[in-house]
């Protein structure tokens, strides 16, 4: 790090404590919500457990909202930690975001468990107002208000990150590397991939959350004044734009862990280049433009949007498959890398992301969507992204920070257990989708139930793997001196 770098960076002692708090809470919540997921799959299997439909749909809402929110916060911690090496961030604001988020979580959990709110995390308008007695208007308002507060919490820290980036780099566009990409400035090999990714996340997620806030407020107004009923198709567009962007931003934030840590292991640099910058500009635009692939079965949408949805859906996979996954593999090839919990989790995360693109792109085709839309195919592809992509990025980051990745043989076994369970779970979803098993069904027909049981068992394996990785980290976390330097040579 040069002296100018140090001048901009957040002081080391301030960076660690809040990140530790995020990780500690995040890992515990992930494990708890995995258990909820296992219960849902087991209920669909009907052999080990039965749940009343109202309880099932409450758990489904909890699992969805909880996982999306926690993935968002954990990925934010990765992003904040590494960005703070390059710009001066305010740890107090970062802490305030966490505290606000916890209030939001209390509202969301309360509305579900006490208020019986169960309109799924997507709160698809006008369902929150049509519970037919299952939940009250107050419960719906509390849930929607909780999501809104979570959005405000994110915007708060994004504001700090944006200001800090502009202070150092002049503009978000310059942080994204646009002047270098278009040849107005020479390629600066010291420009960090972390800064590029942070700029992309800021652009898309501020847009996503802003739209989310609009649709949440409209939903609240509709709950309070039912006569004020906005157009259902418009609301659907806004909700899926928000949801798609927000969940995608988690992976584009968390991948920073791969950019920062994998090079230390491989002892090779991951530098920005013109193709790298072009790829990140492309994903910035495509993440914003691809959401109509969620609306392919809404024939009232203009055909050009469906066509754009299908084409952008395919195109947005290319930068990942060509730049990030391929770049990671090039880094690892004949590097003499030390395989430990952290490095194997990070490589697993690239695999999960790359592999998940295939069922996603295929489902993004209108022909396929006609028979796969809203089947379990959909959770199949996004569990690849999230369970085998985002989460291993976060776990790899935590393992590296707290234990320098050295969790011994148990660490590697844990990763193998996790990867096996995760892959089986995703496959149980994909096979279910191919057999036309609907998603979001509390009760499954007999011929589908074996897949629910396979899913529950696989989910159990994932949970065991997660605990094997996370418990030693959680033990060390309070006293861990966060690793800020390189990895030693191969042990």
């Amino acid at each position: 790090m040069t002296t100018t770098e140090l001048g901009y960076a957040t002081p080391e002692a301030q960076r660690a404590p809040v990140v530790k708090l995020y990780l500690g809470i995040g890992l515990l919540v992930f494990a708890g919500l995995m258990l909820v997921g296992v219960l849902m799959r087991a209920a669909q299997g009907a052999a080990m457990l039965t749940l009343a439909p109202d309880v099932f749909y409450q758990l489904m809402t909890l699992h969805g909202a909880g996982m999306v929110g926690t993935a968002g916060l954990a990925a934010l911690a990765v992003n904040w930690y590494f960005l703070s090496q390059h710009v001066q961030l305010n740890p107090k604001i970062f802490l305030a975001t966490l505290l606000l988020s916890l209030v939001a979580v209390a509202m969301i959990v309360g509305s579900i468990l006490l208020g019986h709110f169960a309109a799924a995390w997507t709160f698809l308008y006008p369902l929150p107002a049509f519970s037919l007695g299952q939940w009250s208007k107050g419960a719906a308002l509390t849930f929607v208000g909780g999501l809104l507060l979570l959005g405000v919490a994110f915007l708060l820290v994004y504001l700090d990150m944006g200001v800090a980036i502009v202070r150092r780099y002049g503009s978000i566009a310059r942080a994204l590397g646009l002047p270098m990409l278009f040849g107005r400035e020479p390629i600066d090999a010291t420009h960090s991939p972390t800064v590029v990714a942070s700029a992309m996340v800021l652009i898309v997620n501020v847009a996503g959350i802003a739209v989310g806030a609009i649709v949440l407020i409209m939903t609240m107004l509709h709950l309070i004044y039912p006569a004020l009923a906005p157009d259902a198709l418009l609301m659907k567009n806004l909700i899926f734009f928000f949801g798609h962007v927000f969940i995608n931003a988690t992976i584009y934030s968390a991948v920073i862990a791969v950019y920062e840590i994998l090079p230390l292991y491989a002892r090779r640099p991951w530098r920005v280049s013109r193709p790298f910058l072009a790829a990140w500009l492309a994903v910035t635009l495509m993440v914003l433009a691809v959401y109509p692939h969620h609306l392919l079965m809404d024939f009232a949408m203009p055909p050009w949007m469906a066509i754009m949805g299908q084409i952008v859906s395919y195109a947005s996979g290319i930068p990942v498959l060509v730049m990030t996954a391929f770049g990671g593999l090039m880094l690892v090839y004949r590097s003499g890398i030390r395989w430990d919990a952290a490095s194997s989790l990070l490589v697993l995360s690239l695999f999960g992301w790359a592999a998940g693109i295939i069922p996603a792109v295929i489902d993004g085709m209108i022909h396929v969507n006609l028979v796969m839309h809203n089947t379990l195919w959909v959770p199949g592809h996004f569990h690849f992204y999230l369970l085998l992509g985002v989460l291993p990025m976060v776990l790899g980051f935590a393992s590296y920070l707290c234990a320098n990745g050295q969790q011994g043989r148990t660490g590697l076994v844990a990763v193998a257990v996790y990867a096996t369970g995760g892959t089986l779970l995703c496959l149980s979803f994909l096979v279910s989708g191919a057999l036309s098993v609907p998603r979001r069904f509390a009760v499954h027909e007999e011929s589908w139930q074996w897949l629910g049981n396979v899913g529950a068992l696989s989910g159990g394996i994932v949970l065991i793997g997660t605990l094997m990785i996370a418990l030693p980290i959680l033990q060390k976390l309070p006293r861990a001196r966060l690793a800020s330097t390189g990895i030693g040579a191969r042990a």
Partner: protein
Amino acid sequence: MMHISILLISLLGMVFIAAVFAFVVLNSGPRDEDYGGISTRGYIIRRWWMIGLCAAGVLVSVWSLIPFPLQASSAESPRIIQAVGRQWSWELASNSVEAGEPVRFRVTSQDVNHGFAIYGPDDKIVAQTQAMPGYFNDLDVTFEHAGKYRVLCLEYCGVAHHAMVTEIAVTEKH
């Protein structure tokens, strides 16, 4: 069978990616200090990989989008059947259809979003569209075989979402 080919193509793609990862992981050592050499060769592979992906994308897009898959069927004056979803039941203007008869389901909802999905006698989805308040979506279907078809709701709509089922009896052609 379309559903199974979709699954097999996806699995094939994922196995390919897994194989590439396995190859690299198995060849992660011993260390080659000449990263410049590795990246030069890597960039050549990457370029062809990129060109291949783009070419495949163009081919698949053209093949799958022309003609536009959601276009109304060319059948002249199909039989129109109104289909209304509400929490938690379907109301079809008619529940019986003849095999080979072009049918246009005119789908809407009275309350929240529902998904109108037709399941064949083999319990696989034949076609679907969304049922939305304030909109009519036209879904053209020609049932090829006689038998018991079912309509399931594929958009989560509340506590009895999974029980929102009705039947369509498809009879042999007269």
